[in-house]
């Protein structure tokens, strides 16, 4: 190519890029565009394996779509009419049959299931994977424990395609815990080949590679930039997914994510500010689906070990001073489920989350504060996680303003995301806002972590009450025994106590918001709140 021609071409290319870039899409590109789903989100995975050290939440999404579990959940119709996972109903995934007895459960594996490299899935792989989940430590082991899955001896290979899980104790969370993301089935031979003495479970290998039998496999991963997934054509554990290729791009600026959606370049985004979702909903160009977090609540917590919040009257005063409706309108733009204003007279339903019997009532708050011995109020600090400043900051400013009306002067303490957990673990902040949500959608599960005297990390208020512990233990025991009446009695009991003693004030149940192009359908809400690519369809 001579210089003149080269320059001419380069010039033409530059001109084209300046004037009509989007129009210059070749037919091959248009073809692949139709077969590809483009997802944009703020951040991406830091590890492709949920068993890894410090795997972040986007990493869970990769695991969910690239690995199979023995069982999964059926779908039902959710609160806003879209498919929503059914807590009670399980369906076989890698297992084709599940046989439950009093002290064990036996799974028969699909005989034709294979891993991405073609190796057959055997009971040996299942045992190795479950052993790994209960042994690697950290989050996966902790999650398995929540369902009384603690020791490798519990997982028994019966034959090549049969595996039995023995129960340590009756626990109604055992089966649901086998359907969460953690007990995924991994290609044990492949991973063992890539394991080292220092890393016997091959975590380094699975961090970079997907070694599952799931519906998708990661073909390219550029950390912090993109993840490319291709459909596994040999997948047998469910209906063949409709979309051959997923490109998941990290776009840090929320404004650009919205622009990409509105211009039709991106197909799905789910972490946009509430204000954007409200405006997109009104413009009606995209489908927007909002679903309340299952078993999740944003709350205002108070440290009950120190004055003045050791006094229940002070806590109730604060609960009456919170500007609930203003928070709903100004901070959340209505995109949350209110958790206030229940009619007084005790808890009527054994469900969680449910609204607390508090309303904004400044006069009552003042009276309670005077009764508690603080007629002139006091000074304290109100802390929040800067990582979620978009919601936390307006919430805290509104609370600060309202507390000033009853004489409580608050200084707002903004804590950087990296430091938030350290501060929570110290359990020294007097007043703070935070979110807790549990994968397993059972009231006693939530209460065990957040209100029990064993004082877990999530009991951020350091709340200890023998009566509460008794009710929580009672609910767990009666649930395992299947005594419905006694169970409901216990649940109502602890919810009632949580409301009257208010160590934490429920503010609202956040929504998972998702914006999609109108031609994308099949979104399902899952307990983990991430996307299930298998069900998505692009017309």
């Amino acid at each position, binding site marked *: *190519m001579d210089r003149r021609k080269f320059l001419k*071409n380069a010039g033409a*290319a*530059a001109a*084209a*890029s*300046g*004037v*009509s*870039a989007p129009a*210059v899409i*070749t037919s091959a*590109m248009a073809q*692949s*565009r139709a077969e*590809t789903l*483009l997802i*944009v989100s703020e*951040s991406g995975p*830091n*590890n492709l394996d949920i068993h*890894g*050290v*410090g*795997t972040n939440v986007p990493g869970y999404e990769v695991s969910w779509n690239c690995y199979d579990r023995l069982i999964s959940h059926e779908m039902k119709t959710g609160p806003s009419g879209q498919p929503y996972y059914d807590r009670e109903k399980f369906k076989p995934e890698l297992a084709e049959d599940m046989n439950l007895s009093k002290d064990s459960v036996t799974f028969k594996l699909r005989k034709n299931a294979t891993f991405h490299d073609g190796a057959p899935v055997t009971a040996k792989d299942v045992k190795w994977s479950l052993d790994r989940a209960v042994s690697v*430590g*950290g*989050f996966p082991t*902790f*999650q398995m424990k929540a369902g009384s899955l603690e020791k490798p001896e519990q997982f028994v290979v019966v034959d090549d395609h049969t595996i039995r899980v023995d129960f340590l104790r009756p626990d109604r969370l055992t089966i649901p815990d086998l359907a969460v993301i953690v007990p995924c089935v991994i290609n044990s031979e492949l991973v063992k080949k890539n394991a080292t003495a220092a890393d016997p479970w091959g975590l380094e290998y699975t*961090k*970079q590679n997907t070694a599952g039998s799931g519906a998708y496999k990661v073909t390219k991963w*550029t*950390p*912090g*930039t*993109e993840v490319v997934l291709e459909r596994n054509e040999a997948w047998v554990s469910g209906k063949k997914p409709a979309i051959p290729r997923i*490109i998941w*791009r*990290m*776009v*840090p*600026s929320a*404004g*650009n994510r919205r*622009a*990409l959606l*509105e*211009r039709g*370049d*991106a197909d799905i985004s789910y972490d946009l500010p509430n204000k954007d979702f409200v405006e997109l909903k009104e413009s009606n160009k995209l489908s927007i689906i909002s679903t309340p977090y299952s078993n999740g609540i944003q709350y205002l917590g108070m440290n009950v070990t120190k004055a003045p919040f050791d006094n229940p009257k002070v806590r109730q005063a604060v609960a009456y001073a919170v500007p609930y409706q203003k928070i709903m309108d100004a901070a959340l733009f209505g995109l949350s489920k209110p958790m206030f204003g229940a009619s007084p007279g005790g808890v009527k339903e054994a469900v969680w989350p449910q609204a607390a019997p508090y309303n904004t009532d400044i006069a009552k708050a003042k009276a309670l504060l005077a009764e508690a011995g603080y007629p002139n109020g006091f000074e304290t600090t109100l802390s929040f996680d800067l*990582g979620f400043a978009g919601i936390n900051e307006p919430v805290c400013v509104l609370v600060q303003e309202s507390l000033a009306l009853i004489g409580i002067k608050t200084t707002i303490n903004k804590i*950087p*995301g*990296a*430091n938030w*957990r*350290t501060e929570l*673990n110290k359990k020294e902040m007097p007043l703070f806002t935070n979110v807790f949500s549990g994968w397993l959608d059972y009231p006693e599960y939530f209460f065990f972590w957040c209100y029990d005297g064993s004082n877990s*990390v999530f009991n951020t208020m350091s709340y200890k009450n023998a009566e509460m512990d008794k009710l929580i233990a009672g609910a767990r025991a009666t649930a395992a025994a299947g005594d419905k009446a006694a169970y409901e009695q216990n649940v109502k009991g602890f919810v009632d106590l949580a409301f009257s003693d208010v160590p934490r004030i429920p503010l609202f149940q956040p929504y998972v918001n998702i914006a999609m192009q109108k031609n994308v359908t099949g979104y399902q809400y899952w307990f983990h709140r991430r996307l299930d690519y298998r069900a998505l369809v692009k017309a």
Partner: protein
Amino acid sequence: MLKVLFGRILTTIPALIGVVVVSFLLTRVLPGDTAAYFAGPAATPQAIEEVKKKLGLDRPLPEQFRRYVVDLSHGDLGQSLTTGQPVVADLKARLPASAELTLFGLILSLLIAVPLGILAAVKQGSFIDHACRAIATAGVSLPVFFTGLLLVYLFYFIWQISPAPLGRLDVFASAPPTVTGFYLIDSLLARDWEAFRSSLAQLALPGITLAIFSLAPIARITRASMLAVLSMDFVRTARASGLPARKVVMTYAFRNAMLPVITTLGMVFSFLLGANVLVEKVFAWPGVGSYAVEALIASDFAPVQGFVLAMAILYIALNLMIDLSYRLIDPRLESTT
């Protein structure tokens, strides 16, 4: 020349040692607990301790520093916890992206600012002089993230003439084989016009954003320096001798006015690298700036240290190049040193 170069390189060693020590200490005094962050939302205190031990964060500081220096001498900058990759690999993949963007912006800025400055100086008080002042003031007073978002809004969202702000290439285009890591150059080498077009289109808006930001200092310095030179005796003599105006301005005046411009250029380049952080965020550009910021938010030490070190080396190399180029422009410096 070689002796000068060698002497120069020697003097950079204390600076490098300083950077290593300071970047290590600074990342240690940052608030935030790496172990707590990466142990996950459900971590127990023991789990956090385990992570700490795994990362070697439970050892005393001098011990941690010793390990850091030993690893460093092997070219190992540690592991990033946010991306899960070795820092060296991350930097290698991301540095060209940042460098390409910064250089593109700088060259664009030079192409506009230098002629603008010269014209403003030659035709002092004219319309072009006022225009130069106005553009420079506007450019420097608009924050880059604002200019960036505004350009995206106008060119992508409203007028639809620019591609989606999704990083270095169109989502469906594939990257050219890596030779230099600069997509513009690599795609030309591979004669991949599609990739060249796509990367140029992607580069345009962030490049313009950076160029607008750096226009002001370059144009102002060029103008001031040209004015000073133009009022000198040798220029008057040249003019009196009847040399064409073009030759007087470009050959005699401009060459002499270049020294301060080059110095400013070094400075502009360094603050463009800083401004890059924001531009990269806005345009989802996979560069080192956004990488360092993400690591900082997660109090992930290794990438921050690696970033500071890489930047320091870059600055030192840049200053060295500027020093050496002085000698080429002004031969008098050669004899005095």
